[in-house]
């Protein structure tokens, strides 16, 4: 039996259902997909009591999100489950691009050296969710305050001044919960979003995709194959991607206005797949589905005590694997802020920075995925003319290959205009400027990111920090001993101090020790001071 057919977290009656007044919880997360699970794990690790509600009782059906970028893996490392996820996944770097009936070029994405994690991995969403549920259970057995309630569908959301009232439908009937904060991770069809009457804004366009999971009976190369306008899917695109366990993902673009039932019939699908894979390749069809997407977001991600993350807040086309990857970065950004607010260490205005930072990130993802969609499905004659010209040239002219856009790899957003960051007055390397996520580098006993925790910290490279810094953990490393660390953090400078946030993004950096400037940057980064210092 496949994992997605097994109830992993069956409905169990909660004492909250018998309470005379709604039980109050610091945080309720709605939706146990990858984003909601990651949020609950991060909160539980910080000893913030969290209830995770899901209308289902099992992991997702079908492979769905399959590509997880390096930043997501680094977040999983921080959450304590990176190894298990990477161990179950496949890594690939080679690919082929086809145009009409010919192969126009091959590529090998050589990853930059000196990072613990690869640029991306492939793993079925249901496998990822299974591993995240396991991590959540482990935390619970360690005594962390986390509860995953299956078969619990939120049907009503009533925001109040000091809390939000949720109505939860269960097999035993409805009950109510009071949440100080609600994190809505309930996906593209978010109930919470609908309950708050929020609409998606921006450029909306829809396209149908057929996705199929196929098991190959024989060896097949571990490569990504992308077809533009192939003979077996005229005017559209197709993608073949490797997953673990001998399963391959096939994405066929179908365009708008199709007959969904008809397109999913095996009699229709199998001949197409034969044309894709070659007549002599034996395969078995495991799972098939038709889905649509749009590129849009809600205007604001914070609505009082309700915070939206993942597909509930923004949606993108599948090109570039920006859906799950950006949702995980939402959670990475949000949870430490929630913790500080709940503990009274920062004012609740700190949560406005979640909106200020993640809205531009969503826009960047929407921009990238819209550009990919425009390249893959040209919407005008001129657009098709240039698209085809790029593909024709790409066969013989290397100059055209960077213009071929079948999805741009998801990279973490740099919070350039964040209200939490202090102005950078240094000549230190651009890739570690304020707003950037800390860049990994090998250090003698392992990796830099492994040494960083998930609190505010001061990374001191070749600069002596005399005393203790209030509220900050100091991590001191020598300069001149780790070439890649020096290259990424120092450049030509003899030493530097980096103020890192709990999500490992750079908040400020200095080339000399000045306790007042460090303290000011920390107050600003933790939302305790908004004026420019």
């Amino acid at each position: 039996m496949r994992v997605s057919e097994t109830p992993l977290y069956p409905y169990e009656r909660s004492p909250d259902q018998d309470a005379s007044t709604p039980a109050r919880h610091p945080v309720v997360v709605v939706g146990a997909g990858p984003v909601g699970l990651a949020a609950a794990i991060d909160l539980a690790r910080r000893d913030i009591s969290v209830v995770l509600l899901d209308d289902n009782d099992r992991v997702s059906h079908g492979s769905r999100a399959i590509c997880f970028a390096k930043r997501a893996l680094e977040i999983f490392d921080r959450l304590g489950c990176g190894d298990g996820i990477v161990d179950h996944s496949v890594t690939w770097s080679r690919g082929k691009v086809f145009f009409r009936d010919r192969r126009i070029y091959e590529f090998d994405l050589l990853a930059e050296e000196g990072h613990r994690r690869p640029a991306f991995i492939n793993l079925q969403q249901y496998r990822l969710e299974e591993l995240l549920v396991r991590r959540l259970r482990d935390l619970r057995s360690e005594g962390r305050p986390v509860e995953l309630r299956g078969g619990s569908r939120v049907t009503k959301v009533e925001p109040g001044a000091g809390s939000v009232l949720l109505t939860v439908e269960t097999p035993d009937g409805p009950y109510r919960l009071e949440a100080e904060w609600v994190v809505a991770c309930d996906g593209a069809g978010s109930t919470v979003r609908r309950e708050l009457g929020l609409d998606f804004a921006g450029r909306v366009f829809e396209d149908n995709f057929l996705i199929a999971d196929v098991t190959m009976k024989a060896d097949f190369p571990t490569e990504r194959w992308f077809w533009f306008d192939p003979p077996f899917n005229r005017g559209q695109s197709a993608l073949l991607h490797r997953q673990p366990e001998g399963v391959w993902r096939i994405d066929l673009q179908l365009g708008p206005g199709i007959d969904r039932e008809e397109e999913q019939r095996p009699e229709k699908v199998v001949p197409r797949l034969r044309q894709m894979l070659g007549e002599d390749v034996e395969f078995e069809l495991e799972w098939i589905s038709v889905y649509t997407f749009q590129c849009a977001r809600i205007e604001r991600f914070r609505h009082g005590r309700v915070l939206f993350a993942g597909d509930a807040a923004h949606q993108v086309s599948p090109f570039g694997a920006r859906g799950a990857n950006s949702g995980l970065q939402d959670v990475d950004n949000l949870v430490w802020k929630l913790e500080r607010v709940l503990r009274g260490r920062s004012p609740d205005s700190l949560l406005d920075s979640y909106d200020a930072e993640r809205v531009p990130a969503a826009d960047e993802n929407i921009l990238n995925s819209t550009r990919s969609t425009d390249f893959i499905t040209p919407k005008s004659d001129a657009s098709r003319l240039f698209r085809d010209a790029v593909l024709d040239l790409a066969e013989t002219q290397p100059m055209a290959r960077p213009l071929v856009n079948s999805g741009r790899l998801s990279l973490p957003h740099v919070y350039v205009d964040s209200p939490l960051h202090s102005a950078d007055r240094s000549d230190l390397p651009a890739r570690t400027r304020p707003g950037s996520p800390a860049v990994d580098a090998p250090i003698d006993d392992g990796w830099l990111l492994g040494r960083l925790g998930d609190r505010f910290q001061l990374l001191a490279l070749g600069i002596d920090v005399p005393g203790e810094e209030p509220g900050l953990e100091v991590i001191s490393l020598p300069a001149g001993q780790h070439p890649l660390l020096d290259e990424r953090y120092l450049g030509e400078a003899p030493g530097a101090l980096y103020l890192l946030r709990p999500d490992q993004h750079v908040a400020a950096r200095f080339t000399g020790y000045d306790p007042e400037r460090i303290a000011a940057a920390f107050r600003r980064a933790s939302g305790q001071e908004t004026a420019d210092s």
Partner: protein
Amino acid sequence: MTRLRTEPNISDGDGFYQELLELHQGRSKEESDALNARLILLLANHIGDREVLREAMQAAARTAR
């Protein structure tokens, strides 16, 4: 409008123009359009400078009917 060269810059302009027309001779409208698109992309890559390219696009758009 400072970086795009708008003064004559091609030696033997008549020869270049003839070559350009010869390139399109015997081609259908569709083939010519595709060829022009490839030519634009090759030349744009050679120029490389985004500001020059932007100015060229604007100059071309301004003179269009």
